[in-house]
């Protein structure tokens, strides 16, 4: 049966993606999708798309149900949303539709909505990935890889050659020697290489909310960059007055009290860069999140020096996000602003709360580097 559902389904998906785009700001600040990757599927709850009609307001109309319970027993949750609709024969309440998208699709929508430019990777020759492609033919192989057309051809050739073939009764019967199989060969493909450094200030002033903001923002940055660099590496650095490299888990859970010396992290970063990431082979990104309360002017000076001499010349993009915290805001962002006003590969943003994540991502990635 030939049905057209596919085209109708595609049109529906298109509408849904449009809806998601409209509400992207809202979805971005939720943390429930964190921890998913590229092909993973996330469910996004959307109010069911329904055509408006003259309808009764379900909150005013009520209905009839069956079952136990005294007068006053709750039987269903109402919703504040406008889309509520209770049908005879159904439970009351709102119809929520779970739309499933892969993180890749979501990142694509993010890119379109934020108008993020495509990134031109550099050093596109270094990494080789091996992938098996079925490109040749073999005489032996598993039945599941049998190549029908080739097999048929071989049998036809043999039958014609041996004179068995007749035009009136063109039956082709393959024998064992005719059978051909698809055969795989590993293929080398070149990919460009990229690494992201996430650097976070874990001094006492960075609370849970601040970390959540960092976590959400880094998730979306990851999702977007991963679309451009399949083999993306991520490394995590935390610092208070000292810096050290940690794993992802620790990155988001560690919490220290005490002072802040940002320079420690920058020095560590530049050491790692010089040791393991040659400039012409790697696309390097660094994202630093802090509340901007640094230990005095001397350290600020050291930071600026390290950045301009040892980091910015090797890196695609350096981003500094200053997260507002309970203890007021620091002035580190101002220091950077002053010194790097005209530098292209540095990007600064002030993240006041969750709602600001959206614009911060846009500031960071909008440069397309």
């Amino acid at each position, binding site marked *: *049966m030939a*049905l*057209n*559902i596919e*085209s*109708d*389904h*595609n*049109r*529906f*998906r*298109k*509408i849904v993606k449009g809806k998601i785009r409209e509400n992207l700001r809202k979805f971005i600040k939720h943390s429930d999708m964190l921890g998913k990757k590229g092909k993973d599927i996330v469910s996004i709850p959307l109010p069911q*798309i329904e*055509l*408006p*009609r*003259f*309808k*009764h*307001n*379900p*909150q*005013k*109309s*009520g*209905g*009839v*149900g*069956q*079952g*136990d*319970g*005294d*007068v*006053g*027993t*709750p*039987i*269903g*949750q*109402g*919703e*504040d949303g*406008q889309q*509520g*609709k209770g*049908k*005879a*024969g*159904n*439970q*009351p*309440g709102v119809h929520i*539709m*779970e739309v*499933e998208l892969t993180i890749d699709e979501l990142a694509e929508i993010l890119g379109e909505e934020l108008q993020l430019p495509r990134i031109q990777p550099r050093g596109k020759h270094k990494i080789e990935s091996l992938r098996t492609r079925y490109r040749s033919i073999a005489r032996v192989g598993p039945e599941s890889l049998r190549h029908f057309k080739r097999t048929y051809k071989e049998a036809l050739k043999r039958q014609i050659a041996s004179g068995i073939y007749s035009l009136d009764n063109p039956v082709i019967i393959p024998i064992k020697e005719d059978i051909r199989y698809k055969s795989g060969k590993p293929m080398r493909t070149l990919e460009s290489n990229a690494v992201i450094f996430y650097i976070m200030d874990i001094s006492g002033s960075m609370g849970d909310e601040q970390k959540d903001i960092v976590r959400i923002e880094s998730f979306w940055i990851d999702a977007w960059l991963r679309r451009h660099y399949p083999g993306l590496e991520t490394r995590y650095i935390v610092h208070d007055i000292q810096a050290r490299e940690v794993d992802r888990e620790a990155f988001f859970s560690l919490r220290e009290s005490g002072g802040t010396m940002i320079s420690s992290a920058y020095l560590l970063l530049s050491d790692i860069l010089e040791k393991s990431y040659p400039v012409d082979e790697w696309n390097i990104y660094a994202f630093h999140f802090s509340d901007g309360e640094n230990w005095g002017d001397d350290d600020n000076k050291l930071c600026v020096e390290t950045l301009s001499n040892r980091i910015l010349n090797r890196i695609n993009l350096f981003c500094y996000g200053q997260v507002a915290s309970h203890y007021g805001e620091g002035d580190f962002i101002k220091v950077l602003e002053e010194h790097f006003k005209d530098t292209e590969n540095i990007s600064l943003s002030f993240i006041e709360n969750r709602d600001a994540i959206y614009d911060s991502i846009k500031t960071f990635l909008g440069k397309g580097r």
Partner: protein
Amino acid sequence: MALPKNLEDIRVRIEEYARNAGLDFFEVIFEILPWEEINMLAAYGGFPNRYPHWRFGMEYEELSKGYSYGLQRIYEMVINNDPCYAYLLDSNKEVDQKLVMAHVYAHCDFFKNNVYFAHTNRKMMDETANHATRIKKYIERYGIDTVEQFIDVCLSLDNLIDIHSPYIKRPHYSSKVEETTPKQKKFPVKKEYMSHFINPDTYEEKVEQKKIEPEKELKKVTYPIRDILLFLIQNAPLKEWQQDVMSIIREEAYYFAPQAQTKIMNEGWATFWHSRIMTRMALRDDELIDYADHHSGTVAIQPGGFNPYKIGLELFRDIEDRWNKGKFGREYEECEDMTRKRNWDLKLGLGLKKVFEVRRLYNDITFIDEFMTEEFAMRNKLFTYAYNEENNQYEIKSREFAEIKRQLLFMLTNNGNPIIDLIDDSFGNRQELLLKHQYEEVELHYEWAKETLRNLYFVWKRPVNLWTVFKGRGTLLSFDGKDFSEKAYSEPE
């Protein structure tokens, strides 16, 4: 795919059982399909050929998800058509297929004999395919976006029809949509002497008039108009293809209306018969558990839910029992001895005769109104619920029988849609539409009403007004193409 041999044998047997039981149906063509295809068909309302529209895609996605999460599956689907088409799920067990076939034959009997289906198109399979062809033609011509957007508009208005019109002859209906090129639109005229000024004759008309005298009178419109869709098709400034699209939507709305009008009865009837045929005739001993499992799934009540299968089934059984025992009529009603009433049995044996009569003549409203008794409501633990603003919850409101019945009948009236009439098409002498909501203590969904007005404007192209009650006061909601306005307004006549 047609039925394989073993199922065909079963089908022949079930059909014979059904006929012997007195069911009278169209020929039923069964097809057995994998779940993907069942879901596709279900998304299209059972018709393999529907016009392209995104909402079918949405239905499909919902159904597929429900199936793959194991939340729901469609065992069967049956189409009101002559011959009837029925689809079976290929992964059903044999006993499920038996049950489903019995169920389908009963549905088909209902389609054929219930008076509310008498006016439905029995060649709807062909008709929807025609609709699809016509709409595809327009899509090719005008582009999918334009056409789909207009379909959206039409669908948004498709409950503005008169679901009773096929049974009540109303004077102003000429339900035939003009198929030929529509003449230039005539503006409605209230005073006869103005006619020449409001609608000056075109050249063609002048020529025509010279040939045939006297002039045909302009069609007199009497208000209120319930079938607003028809009014729009005939009077709104639509392009020819738009008229056609709208008439397609209207026709399909009328085709599906009786199914909504008889949901409880139809499902109840089919369940009544599958249970009877299975338990009395078709069931093998070793299939009993599976049958019981499936059947109880069909009639299960989710806490707080309302299952039309269950209510319909119980009502039919109640009717059968009451008419078998003679538990009706004045003597029974007025009997005050409860013991005597409970053991009442005149051995009339009229049960089956009565249920057949009921399936022919009733719809859900009359069915519930006449046969749902207080004992029945108590036995089935019916209640009404209402929304409580304080804690944002729906709560059980009442177990009073009168209240339950009132609520049920309200939900069923006009298929649950608010009753809205067109009462003036030159409101304020400015060619504006005035719609009136027959307010029955339940307000409209405000946001949706606004969006629907916007769509109505899109069709009428002049300001549109709706009188209704919001927040307890009579309100005139207007849309003039740009802005909504809302003002207190006394109820128009």
